[in-house]
């Protein structure tokens, strides 16, 4: 595989997400409440994708919605949930308890080593922990090795090359150069380790602008880029918008309640387009989220 050529990478959301095949290993960018690639997640649901193997560190509504929609075969994240705020991820939890998804819970450190091995073009890298933890039992693909230099026992984790990485950035240019704000999470590692990188951007900007902001992920790693305002919603994409706690609560409640209420959520928000999604969320709500920086009180109010 070679690096991506310098051409116009702009495409539609539908065409970009069509690059994710059934059964693909999909790396989800962002994490928890920040820069989740939600426009692409919704499009995967619209396109009825099946059998996906998801990889990532700590995630929430992105994984849960894909599981709820029946798109997932295997989950390999270090955490899936809504933290102390909204608790366990309802669809993920139910699927794990029913046995309808393969649970391959991982560890941030192991995953990082696996991605780095792929980036470095070597078959494995060692990690210092895992032995003694039952996480080891979820990963028969790991191996126990003896260090040839120190004689210590370590766990070798195999290189991981996701088929597709789905990343959301606040801005980027037509060549796929992306500017990210912290938390970068694993996006930079995914961009180098994955075979195909698709990015949505809140705003398409000129090359001069993205250079001035700072190119975090270069266009030679990116295959397709899609302008998608509020493309991370209900996750945050600072400095543009904070996360939408009320919407997350609405989703969790629907997913917890059962297939009928979940179906209503998907019909209201997902099955149309990104334009109809934003209309359903409401301009007033989106304005409140973009207004987080008006004052500390305004910011704090979003989390009350």
């Amino acid at each position, binding site marked *: 595989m070679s690096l991506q050529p310098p051409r116009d990478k702009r495409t539609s959301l539908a065409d970009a997400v069509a690059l994710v095949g059934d059964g693909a290993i999909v790396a989800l960018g962002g994490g*928890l409440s920040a820069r989740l690639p939600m426009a692409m997640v919704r499009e995967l649901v619209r396109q009825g994708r099946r059998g996906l193997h998801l990889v990532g560190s700590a995630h929430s509504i992105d994984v849960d919605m894909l599981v709820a929609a029946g798109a997932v075969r295997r989950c390999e994240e270090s955490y899936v949930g809504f933290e102390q705020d909204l608790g366990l991820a309802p669809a993920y939890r139910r699927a794990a308890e029913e*046995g309808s998804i393969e649970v391959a819970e991982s560890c941030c450190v192991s995953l990082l080593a696996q991605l780095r091995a792929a980036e470095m073009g070597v078959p494995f890298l060692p990690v210092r922990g895992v032995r*003694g933890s039952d996480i080891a039992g*979820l990963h028969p693909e790991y191996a126990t090795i003896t260090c040839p230099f120190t004689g210590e026992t370590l766990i070798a984790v195999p290189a991981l090359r996701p088929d597709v990485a789905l990343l959301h950035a606040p801005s980027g240019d037509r060549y796929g150069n992306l500017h990210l704000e912290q938390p970068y999470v694993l996006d930079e590692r995914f961009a180098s380790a994955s075979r195909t990188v698709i990015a949505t951007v809140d705003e398409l900007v000129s090359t001069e602008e993205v250079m001035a902001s700072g190119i975090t992920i270069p266009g030679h790693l990116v295959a397709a880029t899609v302008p998608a305002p509020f493309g991370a919603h209900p996750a945050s994409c600072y400095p543009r918008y904070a996360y939408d706690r009320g919407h997350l609560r609405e989703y969790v409640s629907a997913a917890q309640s059962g297939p009928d209420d979940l179906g209503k959520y998907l019909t209201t928000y997902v099955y149309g387009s990104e334009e109809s999604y934003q209309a359903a969320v409401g301009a007033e709500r989106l304005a409140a989220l973009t207004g987080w920086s008006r004052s500390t009180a305004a910011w704090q109010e979003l989390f009350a």
Partner: protein
Amino acid sequence: MSWTIDEWFVVALARTIRPRETVFHGFGSPCAQVAMHVARRTYAPEMVLIEGAMYAINPDPPFIPPTSNDASLSRGAAYSMRFEEFFDAAIRGDVDRMFLSGGQIDVSGNTNVTAIGPVSRPKVKLGGGGGGCNLSATIGHLTLWTTRHRSGHTLVEACDFITDIGHRTPLGTRAELGFTGGGPQWLVTELGVFDFAGGRARLVELFPDVSLAEVRAATGFPVQAAGDLRAVRPPSAAELAAVRSVDPLGVRTSEFSPRELARTFEPAAFGRGAGQDCAC
């Protein structure tokens, strides 16, 4: 001046931090999060506070939000580490302490944040351990905590699934496994405080409205109590002020049941010196 159990609990967690330590907390850990900022504002101004999944170094957040990677958490930080910068530092031994909890915690300090029941068909699939199964091997010291001790289901004889590694697992002790970090040092619960003398949890402090009998009844392993078992030292005015100013949203309270939150304490019950700034 009075205070509630959630405030006292956070102070007890903060007190496990030693001055100048490099300290981290993971996902979904509001009590630990607030405790770290309280420590930095009171006895440990020179600690290196790594703020959650923003990996911000020594920030000054205006409030603690209900999620561990919101940008509010990095306000005031000159630098935020990348994900890999933090985990590299932790694995090579440069992080002195982190806080870990669990749906189950056993006498050796192994914790379960993966699954209650068999993992192939769990009764409850929990959120997951984040970096725990590697971090627990290499971080200097661990402070464990739970606010669900009284349920009787949390401190258990043996975890259904060991996510994060304590002092002894079925595969061997930390020394036998060659782990470089010291493992669990403290376990703070809403009933009292344990240390890990000899690699096994040992009760060293009790909250004053809790009896040893209650602790035994809520604990799934035999409770060894220290010979000098004492009451948890009441919070000082400075510590309480720090809790309240760090956490105006009260995210710490999300970890407690309403019954626990009703536990209120007053200095009059503790005699001379209690509730004031003290060096004890």
